């Protein structure tokens, strides 16, 4: 059984249907990319998984348990943590305080301290800026901090919402390298991206979302080579 399973999930914003029977899964050890254009329902999918929104139909299973109607705080405790859309840092707190906030659900102080060091090894830039107020970081550093903060909860599944949004090309490269590294250290990643090319390069598997429905799925390589995807998302 997969780690995360969405079965025919539908979701609404008021009367507007944002997700139409979305079925997807993430397995242990995988990077799964969810690609699609603006308004396709990528962020809605993440919000539904993390409990910030509840689906109108279908079911969500995580780690063999049903989390369809579970609240966000419980879902974090079950092991899903996300770097939300727009990063949502605590912009007035320091880098270190943000990381500590990420570990809110944990109480093992030595473990938290060790994980802060781990995040700093992953993102050496953050270590230099440890005491800086996070709102004054550059866009790339803020994204790193958002990812680091999500990792502080020791998630069984990490969800990243548009990690490359608004970053310089060189930083985009760095971010995706780090996604690979996080995954190599054993954390499965569900990646939502508009930058389909980059995302599919990193991902083991991918899903293409169009106006709320999954229209295509396959391995990262398959999707990269698929003509439809190339036309619609890769600009080829």
């Amino acid at each position, binding site marked *: 059984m997969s780690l995360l399973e969405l079965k025919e999930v539908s979701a609404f914003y008021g009367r507007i249907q944002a997700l139409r029977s979305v079925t997807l899964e993430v397995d242990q050890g995988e990077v799964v990319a969810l690609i699609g254009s603006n308004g396709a329902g990528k962020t809605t999918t993440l919000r539904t998984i*993390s409990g*910030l929104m509840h689906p109108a139909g279908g079911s969500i299973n995580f780690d063999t348990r049903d989390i369809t109607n579970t*609240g*966000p*705080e419980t879902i*974090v*405790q079950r092991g899903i*943590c*996300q770097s*939300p859309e727009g990063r*949502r*840092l*605590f*912009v*007035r*707190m320091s880098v*270190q*305080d943000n990381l*500590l*906030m*990420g570990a*809110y*659900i944990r109480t093992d*102080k*030595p473990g*938290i*301290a*060790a994980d*802060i*060091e781990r995040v700093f090894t992953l993102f050496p830039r953050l270590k230099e800026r440890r005491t800086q*107020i996070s*709102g*004054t970081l550059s866009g790339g550093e803020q994204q790193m901090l958002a990812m680091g*903060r*999500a990792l502080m*909860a020791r998630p069984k599944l990490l969800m990243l919402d548009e990690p490359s949004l608004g970053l310089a090309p060189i930083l985009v490269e760095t971010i995706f390298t780090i996604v690979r590294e996080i995954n190599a250290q054993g954390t499965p990643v569900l990646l939502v991206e508009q930058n389909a090319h980059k995302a599919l390069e990193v991902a083991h598997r991918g899903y293409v979302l169009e106006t709320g429905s999954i229209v295509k799925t396959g391995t990262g390589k398959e999707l990269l080579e698929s003509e439809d995807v190339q036309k619609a998302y890769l600009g080829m």
Partner: protein
Amino acid sequence: MSEPTTVKKPGSLWARLHLRERIKDRDTAIYGVLLVVVLVWPMSTYYATGSSFLTSQAAHAGTWVLLAIGLNVVVGFAGLLDLGYAAFFAIGAYCYALFASFQLQSSPLHHAYHLPFWLMLFVGMFVAAAAGAILGFPTLRLRGDYLAIVTLGFGEIVPQLFLNLDQWTGGINAIGSIDQPSLPGWITGPWAGATSIAILPNFNFSYDPTAYYVLVVIMIIIAVVLVTNLHRSRLGRAWMAIREDEVAAAAMGINTVTTKLLAFSIGASFSGFAGAYYGASFGLVSPDSFLFVVSITVLVMVVLGGMGNITGVIVGAIAIYFVLNNVLVSLPTNAESFANAVGLGFITKTNGDWPGLAEEARRLQFLLYGLILVGMMLLRPQGLFPSRVREQELKHDAVVEEETVAEQVPAR
């Protein structure tokens, strides 16, 4: 096996989040000064003025300090704007007044209760906390301005309720001759009273404002210890996160509804605590002691003292109390004697449309109060003694502004 150095001192991690080491110095100094003043106040003012009036005034100011400490939990820590805080104060006061006076004799119960103050202090606290939870439960899903409006409504409803339930509360006639607290026998003991070995001589709440003064100081110390620990606790961090960004807080695994409810409820409990004390010390509880202006005054104390910082809030409460009950009250007489002293005696007399200086000053009291508030906010927008976090917030906002300005300037 070599471990990172931070592992050796795990305790210091959370401490850093509250910037404790930097807060410590200034706060210790303020607490020190306050403690010395509190200790010498009753004696020194008695020798200076020959009456214990100033002690009784200080005891009354203590109620406001308690209220400000409580509201600071809601507004300063959790960032929830509560405009109906006086309602919980009223609930605490009525809770004590009803069960420690002859009031219920004339109610449909036909039986007067005289429960001990020490018990009712905590009952008042719990009832207010429960009221906070009841109000909070349906409303805390609202944010910002909407929450403020609902709490405002609640603050209006509660005194109205006490006014209109006159069968029980006496309505406009208020509840009078409320029991004074008395120390339990095991404290006063057989040695208390007229004998020469009295440990607590004259510690009688019926005559001596010093007794109330001591009581309120002890209550404030308890409140400060509790709130300081709360602020440094896990719950305190959750409040901070919610104040900063609610969605992000939820994404960190913080149960935002429960956390906000706790802020509301804990804040209300201090108000209930203060209410019971107020009922006992004033001896009279009337619906018009809990009007909107009370909520606003407490809010002004919190904002002006320095939102989120306990010492700041205490100083703010004392300062505003002093301005309201001392500076403004004695303004007419002071203005008159000043005019006489500098040889402008004629302006103190009525003359045509001119009502005389004293009367004019009395009329302008609240204009002056407003000017003082505006002036203080202009000089120190962050409050008298802001929390370090808040100071950083303002600094950060300034930095961000500068950066946006810098970005707009074309590079050369």
